[in-house]
């Protein structure tokens, strides 16, 4: 984790401490070492180092922030991110185990698992425009406002997209559209997803896949 990330994590932890002192509950702190043991259950789909499986659309987890990963596991368990495969797995973990496994994957940085094939150049070009600039005619702001330049992520608010497979990104945007996923604050992603048609979904998916994982 970079220095800025450490600083922000410190602030969040401090913030959580303030909030929880009123609620009289101890904050959960993830333990990456314990998480490595839990993670054996994840490896078949997400790869030994959290690199994901491109062809199957199983996302890359390595290097996402622990805050993001833990929230997703909690949301799979609660149902605000509906997924028939992940829900029982997340429910099977304790809150502490979810934090642990999130800490584990957050600390990994394996090379890309992407196949060495170029996507549709026109789709990538359109996706780059949406990613960097947006589209006024659709009242769509750029993805990079929240997901960072080239989709490298904005700790801890928004996950990285760079280096995820097009298959995964497409499926997630469709989950936002259908309402299967509704774990965003203020419907931020639902609003955006509903302004993307199929061609634009394919475009942003192809673009962020083409970027590849960023440090």
């Amino acid at each position, binding site marked *: 984790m970079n220095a800025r990330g450490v600083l922000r994590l410190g602030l969040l932890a401090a*913030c959580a401490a303030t909030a929880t002192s009123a609620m009289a509950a101890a904050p959960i702190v993830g333990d990456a070492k314990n998480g490595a043991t839990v993670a054996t259950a994840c490896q078949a789909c997400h790869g030994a180092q959290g690199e994901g499986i491109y062809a199957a659309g199983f996302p890359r987890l390595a290097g996402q922030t622990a805050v993001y990963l833990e929230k997703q596991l909690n949301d799979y368990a609660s149902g605000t991110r509906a997924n028939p495969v992940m829900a029982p797995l997340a429910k099977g973990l304790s809150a502490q185990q979810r934090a642990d496994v999130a800490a584990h994957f957050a600390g990994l940085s394996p090379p890309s698992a992407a196949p060495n094939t170029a996507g549709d150049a026109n789709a990538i070009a359109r996706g780059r425009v949406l990613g960097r600039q947006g589209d*006024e005619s659709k009242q769509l702001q750029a993805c990079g406002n929240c997901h960072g330049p080239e989709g490298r992520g904005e700790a801890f608010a928004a996950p990285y997209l760079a280096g995820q497979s097009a298959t995964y990104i497409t499926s997630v945007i469709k989950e936002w559209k259908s309402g299967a996923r509704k774990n965003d604050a203020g419907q931020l992603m639902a609003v955006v997803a509903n302004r993307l048609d199929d061609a634009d979904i394919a475009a942003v998916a192809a673009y962020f896949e083409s970027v590849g994982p960023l440090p």
Partner: protein
Amino acid sequence: MTQVMKATDVVIIGVGMVGSIIAKELAAAGYKVVGLERGPPRFTVPDFQSPGAHDELRFDVRKALMQDNTREAVTFRNQSAQTALPIRRWESFLPGTGLGGSQVHWNGQTYRFQAQDFEMASHTRKRYGDKFLDPDLRIQDWGVTYADLEPHYDRFEYLLGTSGKAGNLKGKIQPGGDPFESARSREYPTRPMKEHYSGAMFRKAANELGYHPYPQPSSNLSEPYTNPEGLKLNTCVFCGFCERFACEHYAKAVPQTFILPVLMKNPNFELRTGCQVQRINLDSSKTKATGVTYIDAAGREFEQPAALVITCSFALNNVRMLLLSGVGKPYDPESGQGVVGRNYAYQTMSTVASFFDKNVIINPFMASGASGTLINDFAGENFDHSKLGFVGGSFIGAVNTNGRPINYHPVPPGTPAWGAGWKKAVADHYNHTVMFSLHGSSMAQKQNYLDLDPTYKDAWGQPLLRMTFEFPKNDLKMAEYVTGKGVEIGKAMGAKQVVGTPRKGPYTVTQYQTTHNTGGTVMGDDPSTSVVNRYLQVWDVPNVFVIGASNFPQNASWNPTATIGALTYWAIDALTNKYLKNPGRLVSA
């Protein structure tokens, strides 16, 4: 060589918030409307997108969205006996330029004024007697009432999607809202913003002291909203880059999000940017405007004939446009005669800083422009002034708009201004300080006014506007009083040190206070004390309307935007239902 353009029904000077709304309504009603904007065209995409949108040096320090004062400045002096000099760096107030106007860089604080504000002169006489006011003050009634404006406030809030909690619905006090507000006909269009931690602390302390805290009305929205124009606004992400910046998320209500996409599609409307209006042209009788003359970005001069001229640029520029055009009689502070430039007022801003121990984590950077918690117990006429010797008041609130690294660094008095001691103090206090905003009213007084500068000219050779302004004693007394109340709240919050800074004179243009410049083309019922009648129509030239904060006879305890919006719809109502059907004076002088 002046090129004469094809005549149009309506020409609008300044396509900001007011201009966009008026143009939309008149174009929809079938009139041909030309909008002249001196600045550039700009839209959320691509102009407001990150990472450029969050460049604090460019937008906050160097004021990239503001009027270009290398071409068009304002000169300033405190008193008539002094020589005014041009303001070369905007600091005290920040007039914007470009499509969407100053609203593009606003914080979204969206208050209504109270019923008494519109009848301040008669109300003050009735409650405190004829001799209560300092004789230098020029307080007067607006010529409209809150009841006149309520439907228009409502329409404006629903256009923007303002997030808030009603405190008085049709006369019935609502828990959680502001119990002092004048009755509103319905709830805010969207729920209040999430409360900041500093706001929660403020709320608790204010409640303990018996005050009435409520969530600040915000036009950075709390949830997705579709307005009556069919336009969609998004949820604010609390990035802390509202004021002085444009919003990249379609979450801040600005013309680009709430009206321009509809206006731009109407073939009756033509937008011309980069057009610097030089003057409103009058016929030989001087009682009828024939159109305007402007210079485009290539330096070419055009005349745009029009049946109706509406000037709705920034308040200061509205005043200047009338002075440059010879519309209305200029105010003379010696004789007290004349009206244009009279009753210039501002806002009397004070602060309270509450410094906490390091275990109190404020996280000031998680912020939105109008997500504060505040009280109106000491605003306007909500408290008895009879033994206080002043009129007016201030809202007091924990209004945490940002924690931006270059300009947000609260430190206690006695901190060195630079070096290791300063750095240590910034690090010690950045995350452990709550700043209150005390947003005080501003009374017009005889000595404060706007006129044309005799020496300095703009890039087109026209005289600059000259501002002569000093804080009235009345307002400094008010600031002292309300700051004391703010300090009590800071102490009740448990701060280890509370520092109140009441506004003091002399007024300086080198320190940021607020961009709420008001008056100069004030509205009223009497042509000898107002420039425009109650419908915002110029008394002397009935086919010229002036709309903006320049219409305020004096300024109240709250931000002016919603009142400007209400006046805009009020004027539109008069234009479409009265004036345009039968052009002429709407009120006999």
